[in-house]
């Protein structure tokens, strides 16, 4: 037990990689591929190296990216590609994103880093009123599809109000951008490359808790994982669970415990929240008849509400129980109270049981 716990604390078992039946995610791969054991920040770093290597008109910039970034995601880029393409910016998120939009509008790829998702709000006007509408308002004469905004998000154990936020719901309400959240190193590399190369502006949230904690075999070559395609990472029959990012790890633990009590859980990684893959979730709920959504962000107005409403519309007669949401609470993200705030494995397990026993 102690060794199990210590293994969990040091390295998080990546969801979908070790337990139960797992659908192989669609990836493009060449014949001979080598893999390497990488953590999340290294996988992201690899994706950025590949992105800059394969497109000479691509740029990476943000606060402190020059020396490698506060989370080391940009290590080695400035040395390799030069300070004209990889550079520090002044401390100004609206400037960082605004500048990135301008670069992208000229046909470049601008991979912009916001140091913490908690600090993305000064750039919200640029994202909503400029980036999201750039193509539409111009009648497709212009676009800033080359823009990708990366930001670490989510709980980290001691982050408090301003180093733990999950702001994805704000962005899911903005037609014209895409919102992508990877669950693991291998997923992150493929999804980030897809996001960078997608012809639409993308906001890419990286679960900072997993930067070091998650380690996975990551193919070394250039591969992309498609956007707007959810993945069933664990098959089951009694209840569908939907989540994204770091929360999937917690949800998978709950699924394992539930299985011991005879409940068969199907776990879906949404990956792209906007536009989201309703079809995969709908097909699953039509099979299981039950849905549980879990996210760290506060429950009220969280993205779980959108999923719940949509599935109710589409699967009403197939539902055996109300849709359950196990989420963060409606408070600013607290420090000392973090363990009470978080949607833990046991909260999820309790909800699974009460949904199944409804």
């Amino acid at each position, binding site marked *: 037990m102690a060794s199990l716990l210590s293994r969990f604390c040091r390295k998080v078992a990546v969801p979908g990689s070790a337990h139960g039946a797992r659908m192989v995610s669609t990836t493009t791969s060449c014949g001979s591929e080598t893999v390497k054991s990488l953590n999340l920040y290294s996988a992201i770093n690899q994706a950025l190296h590949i992105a800059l290597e394969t497109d000479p008109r691509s740029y990476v910039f943000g606060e402190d990216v020059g020396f490698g970034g506060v989370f080391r995601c940009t290590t080695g880029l400035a040395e390799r590609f030069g300070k004209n393409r990889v550079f520090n910016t*002044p401390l100004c998120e609206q*400037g960082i994103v605004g500048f990135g939009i*301008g670069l992208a*509008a000229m046909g470049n790829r601008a991979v912009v880093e916001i140091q913490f998702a908690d600090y993305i709000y000064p750039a919200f*006007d640029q994202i909503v*009123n400029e980036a999201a509408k750039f193509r539409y308002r*111009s009648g497709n004469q*212009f676009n800033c599809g080359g823009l990708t905004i990366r930001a670490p998000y989510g709980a980290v154990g001691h982050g408090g109000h301003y180093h733990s936020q999950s702001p994805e719901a704000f962005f899911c309400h903005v037609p014209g951008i895409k919102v992508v959240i990877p669950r693991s190193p291998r997923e992150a590399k493929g999804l980030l490359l897809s996001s960078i190369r997608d012809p639409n502006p993308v906001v890419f949230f990286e679960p900072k808790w997993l930067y070091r904690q998650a380690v996975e075999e990551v193919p070394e070559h250039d591969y992309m994982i498609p956007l707007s395609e959810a993945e069933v990472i664990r098959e089951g029959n009694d209840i569908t669970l939907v989540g994204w990012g770091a929360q999937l790890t917690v949800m998978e633990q709950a699924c394992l415990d539930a299985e011991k009590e005879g409940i068969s859980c199907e776990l879906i990684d949404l990956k792209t929240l906007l536009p989201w893959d309703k079809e995969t979730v709908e097909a699953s709920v039509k099979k299981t008849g039950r849905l549980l959504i879990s996210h760290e962000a506060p429950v009220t107005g969280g993205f779980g509400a959108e999923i719940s409403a949509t599935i109710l519309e589409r699967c009403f007669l197939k539902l055996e129980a109300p849709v359950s949401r196990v989420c963060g609470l409606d408070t600013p993200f607290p420090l000392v109270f973090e363990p009470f705030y978080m949607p833990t494995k046991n909260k999820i397990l309790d909800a699974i049981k009460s949904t199944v026993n409804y």
Partner: protein
Amino acid sequence: MAQHLKSSSSRSTLLNVLRHNLGLGSPSHASRHLRHNLPHNPPSTRVSPNPLTRLCNTMVDTLSSTSSHEDANSQVMDFPGGKVAFTPEIHFISESNEQRVPCYRVLDDNGQQLTDSRFVPVSEEVAVKMYSDMVTLQMMDNIFYEAQRQGRLSFYATAFGEEAINIASAAALSPQDVIFPQYREPGVLLWRGFTLQEFANQCFGNKSDYGKGRQMPVHYGSNKLNYFTVSATIATQLPNAVGAAYSLKMDGKEACAVTFFGDGGSSEGDFHAALNFAAVMEAPVLFICRNNGWAISTPTSDQFRSDGVVVKGRAYGIRSIRVDGNDALAMYSAVHEGREMAIREHRPILIEALTYRVGHHSTSDDSTRYRSADEIEWWNKARNPLSRFRTWVESNGWWSDEAESDLRSRIKKEMLEAIRVAEKTEKPNLNHMFSDVYDVPPLNLREQELLVRKCVKSHPQDYPSDVPL
């Protein structure tokens, strides 16, 4: 106590070295670019009213007095960011200079060329096109404004009083310079060849509108003419322009980015973000501020307490100039020289064009509610950019009353025809509501289009009949 150096030339050399160490730009750079050298700084023998120059001069004196003894460095403090001289005085830099930054002008109020004015010469062809386009802009504004009053257009915003800023700046640029407008610069598009019909199509939102009917009138855009589509949000275009300028620099283009904004826009956070980025990134971008005295009903005294916008450039390390925005020749020269510096030296330039917003903010505004009709009338007559420039053009023998009336009757005819055609051209197809949100419509939009079409079939009376399905 201060000893003067023996020769003034070595003093000015030391002055320049000190300027460089303090991170101040070399002042002689700017003057080299004008065809006729304008004095940029007062001669060093005069006591400078500029506190920074006084500081430098004092420092020179202090250092020179100790140069014969040991370490001059003991007089200087070393912090991240460079060496600074210390001072035992508690001296606050004044909140403003003793005198306002002077305003560059070439023509007097009556359009007579000032005797000592320096400017970039314009040929007859360019001058006549500039003047004609100013007239065209004014007439276009008049006729569209009236069309809105008659209920034929939903909205309009004029550029009355700012014709020289619009046309002269466009004339001084090259077609490859990319424009990030606010919304009061349609003259730049006009100069580059946007037709009256194209303007009318956008205002009426018909199927020939390049914007596909998605935005209010005056929200023009043209990729063919390198003019990014207008968005109503204030100053958001400024940081975008900086990114575009950086792209031009990295691609080695002989071009710059140019962005326009008003006195109100200079209060937005994006203004500060953009200027700071432009300086740090060494981006070839022109920031052209149309300081027309009003942000809707807010006069500049409620907007800022600095000496206008020009003084803010220095705070970011940006070379700046104040110019008479109603003087077409001054605008042309300032933009011409600014552009050259921006491209050659990879630096941003700030140009504050002083002017007056003769028209209302838009057709949704009646400015007589917050300013006197006399004031508006005075600016319209006494400082009219068209009449001043016309006088100068005519003084060269390049224009006449006949040319004027020919032009005006031609434009009027073209405008009325453009409106007639635009008005009866059908709107864009309903499917254009859903296209271009993304490069390819995602499933949720395809579903929504089907739902809307179903609803239109059931309740046709709820929907405009001029949108084809």
